[in-house]
């Protein structure tokens, strides 16, 4: 490197400079080294990724074509039998109706997150405090949330006592009927995940240049118009991402219903069912097939959404 630059410099001094010389290729070992360096940095993350993500997935695909029970040293190849069983037994797909509750809840969740993100991106008193309050639930461990809300919904628990403060003496078993239980669980899920959506939206909103608001205000646009014409188009990519995450999250809802009801009273989701197949009834093969089908469904939904809402460039100015 150094000697080519020197040459170029001296050449320029002489005046009879030929065209700027192309930098001479680096010696072989150095080139090799340069090619390898980024991979050296990547060894650790790639090893982890392969060990904990891709290898198990490959294994899972392999198991989905067998009748393995999860522990026996003997397993038999059964072809697509597991997949046939999955698609011919309607009881296995009925649980997807439960996801409807979570889908509906995620609409509420996105609207609420958007509302709070918009309000808190303007000057509001105790702005940072409210941001913290809204984001906090997302930081709590899902298992802890499950237990906390079990007490919350208990007969005579927090919810009932709060309601009675307002003069409403309810005698309602919140997790008692399928509809009420699913609505309650979806409510917990909104409480938990709204903070994440909120932070994503807030970040996107704050990346919109401030002058735009000033200009809009000078033009006499009110807050709603500012939202409609500046914020909404400005955060569209993040909005699309959030919708995709919510849909896939709703289809694979798991920890809240699993911890709080264990899937009882009609709250069983597809993932809980898969888990039961694998560990309750020792049908690891069938459960692997179910897991793969869920993965494919989620990929399909994501692909459909990307087709329906293309990710065009945001151009506000």
């Amino acid at each position, binding site marked *: 490197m150094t000697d080519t630059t020197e040459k170029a410099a001296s050449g320029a001094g002489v005046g009879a400079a030929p065209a700027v010389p192309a930098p001479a290729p680096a010696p072989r070992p150095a080139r090799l080294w340069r090619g390898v360096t980024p991979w050296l940095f990547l060894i650790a993350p790639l090893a982890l990724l392969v060990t904990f993500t891709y290898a198990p997935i490959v294994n899972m695909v392999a198991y989905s074509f067998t009748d393995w029970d999860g522990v*026996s*040293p003997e397993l038999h190849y059964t072809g697509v039998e597991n997949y046939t069983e999955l698609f011919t037994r309607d009881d296995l797909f009925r649980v997807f109706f439960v996801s409807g509750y979570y889908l509906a809840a995620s609409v509420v969740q996105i609207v609420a997150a958007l509302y709070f993100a918009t309000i808190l991106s303007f000057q509001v008193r105790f702005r940072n405090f409210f941001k913290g309050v809204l984001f906090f639930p997302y930081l709590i461990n899902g298992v802890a949330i499950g237990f906390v809300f079990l007490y919350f919904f*208990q007969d005579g628990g927090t919810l009932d006592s709060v309601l009675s403060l307002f003069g409403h003496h309810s005698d309602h*078993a*919140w997790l008692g009927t*399928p509809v009420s239980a699913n609505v309650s669980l979806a409510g917990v899920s909104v409480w938990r995940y709204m903070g994440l959506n909120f932070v994503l939206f807030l970040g996107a909103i704050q990346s919109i240049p401030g002058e735009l608001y000033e200009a809009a205000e000078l033009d006499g646009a009110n807050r709603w118009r500012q939202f409609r014409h500046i914020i909404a188009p400005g955060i569209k990519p993040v909005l699309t991402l959030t919708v995709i995450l919510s849909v896939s999250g709703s289809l694979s809802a798991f920890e809240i219903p699993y911890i709080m009801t264990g899937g*009882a*009273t*009609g709250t069983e989701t597809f993932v809980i069912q898969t888990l039961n197949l694998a*560990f309750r009834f020792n049908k690891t093969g069938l459960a692997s097939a179910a897991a793969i089908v869920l993965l494919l469904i989620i990929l399909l939904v994501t692909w459909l959404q990307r087709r329906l809402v293309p990710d065009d460039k945001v151009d506000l100015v």
Partner: protein
Amino acid sequence: MHMYRPHLLALAAGALLLSACTGTGGASKGADAKAPDDPSKVSGTIKVLTQRTDLVQDGTMKKYAAEFRRTYPKVKVEFEALTNYETEVKIRMNTENYGDVLLIPGVIKKSDYPKFFASLGTRDERATKYRFTDFTTVDGKVYGQSPIGVTPGFVYNKRVWQEAGVTEWPTTPAEFVADLKAIKSKTDAVPYYTNFAAQWPLTSWTFVNGSVHCDTRATTKLAQGDPWAEGADLRVGDTLLYDVVRQKLVEKDPTTSNWEQSKPRLAKGEITTQWLGTWAVIQFQDAARKAGTDPDDIGFMPFPAQVDGKFCAVAGPDYNQAVNVHSENKAAARAWIDWFTDKSGYDRDNLAISPLKDAPLPEVLRPYEDAGVKLIELDDTEGARVKLIDTESEVGINAPEYRQKLVDLARGARRGTLDDFFADLGKRWTETRKNLGS
């Protein structure tokens, strides 16, 4: 907290080795763990896997180990307590590294026992001394031994039952329901507690099997017939559960029931009855001591059914202890199992039935002896087949789901009739049974 590390390793190893290991498990098939002749010559360090996290944490297991060392001075015993025993051990059993002594998890097929465990001897030789040998016998060889025997029954608060004017054990399901009604009308207590949310207590209703008709071949009947046919044991038990819930003789909101809280509440008499097992009595007595009430209030009664004027109770094994077939210290591991079963006093400490045939019944069952309750042991020859039908059909007689659905049905949170519910279960069961060939 170091007890968590091996799990992570095991998980990682499991993920990597799953495919590599399946198919090689039979390497040391058929090994025996012979009882050592001279205790002073056995040496080595053995690792014992257990589900009793509580006993490992409070040092009780260490005390057993210290006692054990007096007889076997050269053997060092280490314990590893697993919170979620079944699932964690299942994953580890894909490797060869699953301790020296472990409890046989429910998932292992009986026919696979010789691939995973070393034999403890022949059935003929062990059955003269020990109970429950049938449950782990494959081709005449025994692969495990439960250190305690349990019998299912209702744990109840004697004081409240007496306050309601009931002094005799009910002898029919109808009488039982009537007694609970009396408790509901005469006291403030919740007559029966389902423990719906904790899930596993509901599965103990399967242990009704055998006691209704006092039939030692009840398990065989499950393998050959419809468990929910008119008059069948499971139908009688499930109908009783349904009736109790239907008549609102249970907690107001089963979905938020709480197992830990249920213990002091039963001790105080806020709850009066739960269908569990002898093993639970000591826990409720402890809860009574902590709550400042009389531990003697905790009573235990058999299922309300009589044959020839006598109650019947089924004694069955708890988890069976076994020796890892890959263990390098089989003699030491065998020594531990023998000592733990025969001499540790673990059975007495848990007020459980001793695995030794000639040992007296525990104090808890004194009322049973006085009332002449017949204690039977089920024939388990068809046990493996019942398990196979159960998982294949996804009915799950040992899983909580179907009884949760039953309770939901009874409280009106699920549509349908009881007859249809039983008919559906029976249909799934018998169809699977026929598909598997008889």
